[in-house]
C-alpha cells in the first residue's frame, strides 16, 4: 500500500523466481483493464495489462472511515464500462455499495446495505446491482441479498435468503440471480422480476434436492448458532465431514446450468436449471472457492483457496484440464477477459504479505504476469 501510495507503479511480469511466463504464450495485442479490491487497506487497484506488460495503473482509496478499515470486498464493472461498483463490508454496522466513475475514479454515490456486503454483480442492463450481505458477525441467522438501483444508488430490496450468503451472479438474461449459503448447504435462486426467492437447492452429497420457495428462516440462538465457518474456506473438512460449504454459484453462459463450488468438499456441483435437479458432482481443487465461465461457455476457471492455484475445467466433460499455481496463498477471485484470452486471479496472501493478481493465459494455461496489490485482495472484475 505504501508503495502504491508513493506512486511507484509496479510493472511486473512476475515476482522474481515465481515469474514463469509460458514459452508458448504470445503477448497480448491489446490492453485489458481489471479492478481488484484490497479489503485490509481500503484500496481499489486498477490494473492494466497489454503489450507493455502488467502494472497497477492507479490505486483508488475507498471508504468513509479515516482510521478504521471499511473493507472493500466485491467489485463489479457495469456492462457499458462507464461505472464500477465496490462493496465495503464494514459499517456502523451496515456496509455500503459504492459507485465510481470508471474514467475519473471519483466516487459518485453509495447505498447502505446490510451486514458485511460482499460479492456484487451488476445486471446485464446495468440498472441493478445484486450484493450478498454475508453477515460475518455474531450468531448464525438468515441474511439477505440486497438489490440496488444503480442510477441513484437506492437499495430497493433486501431479500432474505439464508445464512452467510456468498457469491452473487446473474444468468445472462438477468432474470435469475444465484447465490449460495455457506452455512446452509444451499443454492438460492432469486426471481429478479419479483425480487423474491424462487427456489433453493440442497447441496450436501447424497442429499441433493431442489425445492421451491425460500430456505427455512434461521434465527439467532437457533440450532447452529455460533457454528464455526471453517476458517472461511481455509480449514479442510474434518474426517467424515461430507459437507459442501458452498462459496460460489456460477450460471452457464446459456443460463441452463448452474455450477456451484463446494469449498469444504472440494467439489463442483452442476445443477440443471429447468428441472432444478443435480446433473453431476465433479472433483475440484483444494478449497475450490470462486468460479468464472469463459464467454464461449467452453471452460470453467476455478480458484482453489486452500491449494494456492487455479483450475481450468472443460465445461462439457467436467475434466480438469490444468491446475496452475498462483503466487500467493489464499487464492480468491477470478475474472475472464471478454475475448477469453486471460483470467485475472486475485491472491490474498496472509497477514502483512502483499496480495497479488496473477494473469493466466487461458490458451497456454500458464501464468504470464503478476502484479502486487494491497493486502487481502479479494473481489476482481475486468472491463469488457
Amino acid at each position, binding site marked *: *500500500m*505504501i508503495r*502504491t*501510495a*508513493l506512486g511507484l507503479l509496479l510493472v511486473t511480469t512476475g515476482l522474481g523466481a515465481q515469474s514463469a511466463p509460458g514459452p508458448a504464450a504470445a503477448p497480448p495485442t491489446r490492453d485489458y483493464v481489471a479492478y481488484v479490491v484490497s*479489503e*485490509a*487497506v*481500503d484500496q481499489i487497484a486498477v490494473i492494466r495489462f497489454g503489450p507493455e506488460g502488467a502494472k497497477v495503473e*492507479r490505486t*483508488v*482509496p*475507498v*471508504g*468513509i*472511515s*479515516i*482510521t478504521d478499515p471499511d*473493507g472493500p470486498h466485491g467489485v463489479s464493472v457495469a456492462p457499458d464500462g*462507464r*461505472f464500477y461498483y465496490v462493496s465495503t463490508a*464494514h459499517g*456502523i*454496522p*451496515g456496509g455500503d455499495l459504492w*459507485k465510481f*466513475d470508471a474514467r475519473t*475514479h*471519483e*466516487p*459518485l*454515490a*453509495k447505498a447502505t446495505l446490510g*451486514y*458485511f456486503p460482499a460479492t456484487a454483480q451488476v445486471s446485464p*442492463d446495468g*440498472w441493478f446491482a445484486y450484493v450478498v450481505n454475508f453477515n*460475518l*458477525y*455474531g450468531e448464525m441467522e438468515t441474511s439477505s441479498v440486497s438489490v440496488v*438501483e*444503480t*442510477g*441513484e444508488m*437506492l437499495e*430497493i*430490496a*433486501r431479500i432474505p435468503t439464508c445464512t452467510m450468503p456468498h457469491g452473487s451472479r446473474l444468468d445472462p438474461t438477468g432474470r435469475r440471480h444465484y447465490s449460495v449459503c455457506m452455512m446452509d448447504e444451499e443454492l438460492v435462486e432469486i426471481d429478479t*422480476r419479483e*425480487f423474491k426467492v424462487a427456489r433453493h437447492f440442497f447441496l450436501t452429497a447424497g442429499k441433493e434436492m431442489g425445492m421451491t420457495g425460500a430456505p427455512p428462516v434461521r434465527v439467532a440462538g437457533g440450532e447452529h448458532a455460533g457454528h464455526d*465457518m471453517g*476458517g*472461511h474456506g481455509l*480449514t479442510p473438512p474434518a474426517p467424515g465431514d461430507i459437507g459442501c460449504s458452498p462459496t460460489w454459484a456460477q450460471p452457464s453462459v446459456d443460463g441452463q446450468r448452474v455450477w456451484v463450488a463446494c469449498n469444504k468438499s472440494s467439489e463442483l456441483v452442476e445443477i440443471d436449471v429447468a428441472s432444478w435437479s443435480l446433473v453431476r458432482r465433479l472433483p475440484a481443487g483444494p478449497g475450490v472457492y470462486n468460479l468464472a465461465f469463459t464467454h464461449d461457455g467452453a471452460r470453467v476457471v476455478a480458484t482453489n483457496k486452500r491449494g494456492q492455484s487455479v483450475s481450468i475445467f472443460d465445461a462439457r466433460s467436467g475434466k480438469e484440464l490444468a491446475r496452475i499455481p498462483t503466487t500467493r496463498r489464499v487464492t480468491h477471485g477470478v475474472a475472464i477477459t471478454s475475448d477469453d484470452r486471460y483470467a485475472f486471479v486475485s491472491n490474498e496472501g*496472509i*497477514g*502483512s504479505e502483499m496480495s497479488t493478481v496473477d494473469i493466466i493465459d487461458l490458451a497456454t494455461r500458464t501464468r504470464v504476469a503478476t502484479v502486487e496489490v*494491497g*493486502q*487481502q485482495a479479494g473481489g476482481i472484475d475486468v472491463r469488457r
Partner: protein
Amino acid sequence: MSPRLLSLLLAAPLMLGAQIPQTAPGAQQAAPSGAPSSIARIIVSPVQRVMHAGDTLRLTAEARDASNKVIPGVQFRFSGAGARFEGSVDASGLVTSGSTGTMPVAVVAILPGEQPKVERIEVRMVPGPAARIAITPAPAKLAPGQRIRLTAEVYSKLQDRRADKVTWRSSNSAVVSVSDVGLVRAVAAGKATISASVGNVQQTLAVEVAATPVATLAVTPAVSNARTGDVIRFKAVAKDAAGREIAGLTPVWSFNPGQGLIDAEGAFVGYQPGDYTVTASFGNTTAEAVVSLTPRDVRRPLTVMGRLPRMRFTTEEVWLHPTEKVAYLGSGSGGDVLYVIDITDPAAPFVTDSLVSNTRRVNDVMTTPDGKFLVHTREGASDRKNGVVFASLEDPRHPKVVAEFTEGVAGGVHSSFIFKDPKHGQHVFLTNNGTGALHVVNIDDPSKPREVAQWKTENRPDAGRSLHDIDVQDGLLYGSWWNDGLVILDVGNGMKGGTPSKPVMVSQFKYDLNALYRDVEASGGPGFIRGTHTAWRHKNYVFIADEVFPASGPKGAKDAAAMRAYGQLQVVDVTDIEKPKSVAFYEPEFGGVHNVWVAGDSLYIGAYNGGFRVFDVSGELRGDLRAQGREIGHLNTADMDGVVKNAAMTWGVVVKDGLAYVNDMLNGLWIVRIEPKTTVVP
C-alpha cells in the same frame, strides 16, 4: 488508521476526497444504456407527508405516462435515502419514524425492460403532541421585588423537544406576576403558583414570596484570590432587617468583566487573569464579591527522552507491562505485528521480539493486572477469524500465544479491556465490530476463554450501533457507544445488581453529535465521521473524547492540507452516576481528541493532528479547559523519521513512572518526560 490516511497524506494525486455523502436528490448519474422509461411521473400519496415521531405512515404510488394516464403493471419499491438513524421505510412504502427529522424517501417505479424511474419525496417527522413541560430554574422561594427569568421547555411523550409557545400564568398576580415570556416578579408576600401550559398540558411551580424583605445581602466569599480555572462556589446570604437569614432563596448570578462562567448554583470559573466582580441579585437588592485571578501557571517544559520510529506499518495502541520495563506496540494498515519493546533505558528503546498473528491490524493491547498475560485484538484476518489473541508473559519480553477467542466476534474486535475483581474473577470486555455489542469473556484461565455475556444498546435501530472503546473501574463499565454516547453499565459493582455475566444499565449520557459538529459538516459535507470514541473514569468525572473526521477535505487540497481531525473532549460529572452531567470541555484549535489517560492531576491526550497534550485537571472542573490556561504541555509528535514525514497523528499515551509513552500512527513511539516547572526570571 486505514491506509487511506496514508494515501491522503502521501499520494496527493490519488486523493479523491474519497468519502462521499449519500446521494443528493437529483444526483442521478448518466443512465445506463437501455430502453427509456415510459413513465412520465410518479404520484405519491398522501400529498401532506408529515408524521409524528414514533408513528407509522403508509405511502402509495401510481405511475402516469406523458398523457397523464395511469400505467398498469408498475412495481413500486420504496427506499430510504437518508436519515437511517431516525427512521425507516420498507419496500412497500410503510414509513416508521424513530425520531424527529426529515426522511428522504425514493420511490422506484419498475417496468420490465425499461429503465427504472425514480421519484424523491420527503417525509417530515415531527415531535408528537406536547406531553411534558419542564420549567428551569425552579425557585421555590423569592424575595419581595425579585425578578427572575423562567424558561419552559416542551417535550413530547418520546422526549422530543417541541417549539410551542408557552402560555404563562400566575394563580395570584398580586403575589407573583409572570410575563408572557416567563419573566417572574415577586410582588408581595404570599404564595402563588406559576403555570406554563400548552393546550391541555401544564406544568406548575409553587412559589412563595418571603414575607420579609431582604434588608441585607452578602455574597461569600467576599474576596477571592485564585487562579484561572479554579472553581469558586459562591453563596448569597440574605437577611431581614432583624439580621435573620432568609433561607431558601434563589438569587440571580452574574459577573463582569472578563471571560468565564457562573452557573445557577453560584459556581464561578474565570478564564483570564484579572479582577472580576460577581453579583447576586434579588430584584433591586444586589451584592457583590470580588475575585482576583492570577495565571494558572501550570505550563511545563517537555523533553523527548527516547524515540522508536516505526516505518513498515502505521502504529496503533501502546501498553506497558505492569512490573517490567517492557512496552507493547500494535501495528495497522495491513500490520500483523505486535512489537515487544525493552524500555529499560528510555533513551534507547529497542525491539526485543514481536508477535505476528493472522491479522492486518493489532489495534488494541492490554495486560492482565498481574502481568502474566496480554490480550490483543485482530481485524482483517485472512481466515476471517478475528477476535482476540491471548499470550503468556512468562517472559514479558517474549510473549507466547496461548489461546484465541473468535466465537461471535469473528468479524473483528477493535478494543478490549481486562478487569479483575475478587468476587467475579478476571474478564476481558470486547467490542464487536459488526453488531456494536459488548462481549464479556471470562479469562480466569486465559488459555480457556469463555464468553459469559453479551450486551448492546436497545430501543434503537440496529443501524448506527457501534461500540468503540471500553473502560472498567470499580465494577462499572464506561462504554463509548458512538451514536449512543457514553453508556455506564454495572458489571460487578453491584449498585444495580450487575455482574460480568449480567451487565445492567446504570445510565447513559447522550448528546447531539450533529449539532456539536455542525461546522465539520458545513466544511466537509454530510456523512462525516463522528461519535463518542473513548471514556476514562477519574474521581467523580468521566472524560469522554469524540472522534471526528470531515467527509472530505477542502477541494484542491493535497497532502496534509487535505485531511484533519476534529473533536471535543467533555468532562462528565458522575457524582450522581444515574444523572451524568457535562460540566467542562476541551477542543483543540487544530486536531482532534483520540485517546486519553489520566494520572494524578494530569490529563494526557493523543490529539491526532494536534499532537500530544497534557492538561492540569486538579480541583473542580468547569467550562473551557483550554481557555482557562490548564494546558501543561504540548508536543508535535512529528519528525522526519516516521512513515509520513513531519506530520503528527497522535493516537494516545500511557503514563508510568513520570514518563509518557506516546504512540503516533505515523511516527511510532515517543517517550516524553514532563519536566518540573521552570522559574521565569524577569
